């Protein structure tokens, strides 16, 4: 790829984008698009958790006590918040790494999602076992 096209693309970026993304060269657009797709997949996960939190609070009133219901709903909503915000920083870090040809960073939101999901599942399992028949 000729260098002048990369410079042109760099100029096309806004001031904020230039400051946040730093220097380096534009990566292959397919990689940029793949990074965006991964970001959108995390956003979908975040929205699913958000919907799950709302559903627990709205639909499980007859099954769960108010405190337990509130705890699970808040846990899911906090998880949605962390995943939603974290997905942006993950996208930014991957974009920076691709521009500077450095190794891709570890996705920190993956263990957060795993631990959070396991915690909610564990609470539900304990509730189902402890619930009187």
């Amino acid at each position, binding site marked *: 790829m000729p260098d002048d096209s990369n410079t042109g693309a760099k100029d096309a970026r806004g001031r904020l984008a230039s400051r946040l993304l730093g220097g380096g060269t534009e990566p292959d657009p397919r990689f940029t698009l793949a990074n965006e797709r991964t970001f959108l997949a995390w956003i979908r996960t975040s929205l699913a958790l958000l919907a799950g939190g*709302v559903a627990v609070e709205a639909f499980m009133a007859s099954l769960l006590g108010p405190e337990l219901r509130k705890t699970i709903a808040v846990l899911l909503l906090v998880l949605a918040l962390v995943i*939603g915000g974290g997905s*942006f920083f993950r996208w930014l870090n991957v974009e920076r790494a691709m521009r500077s040809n450095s190794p891709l960073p570890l996705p920190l939101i993956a263990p957060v999602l795993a631990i959070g999901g396991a915690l909610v599942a564990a609470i539900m399992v304990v509730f189902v076992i402890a619930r009187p028949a």
Partner: protein
Amino acid sequence: MAMVVAAALFLRWLPHHGWFVGTLVCGAIAAALAINLTQKRRFHRAVRGINRETMPPDLGSTAAVAASVVVLALLGIYTVLFLPLQP
């Protein structure tokens, strides 16, 4: 589409938590509409980028989508914790 589903679920809160949930529904629908209306522009931008083999990342759209999800989650937490259930 996922935003519309989230908005539809927020509707279920409307009778229990009152008018405040209306802002959540409106916010989610507005975000879904904005994404849908700018879809064509983003598609053409991606096509141009592949064609020229260079494409600056779309920081604005990415930040806006992430911010809208974060704000919706924050408002949801506020609703669960601080808005009393209406009979």
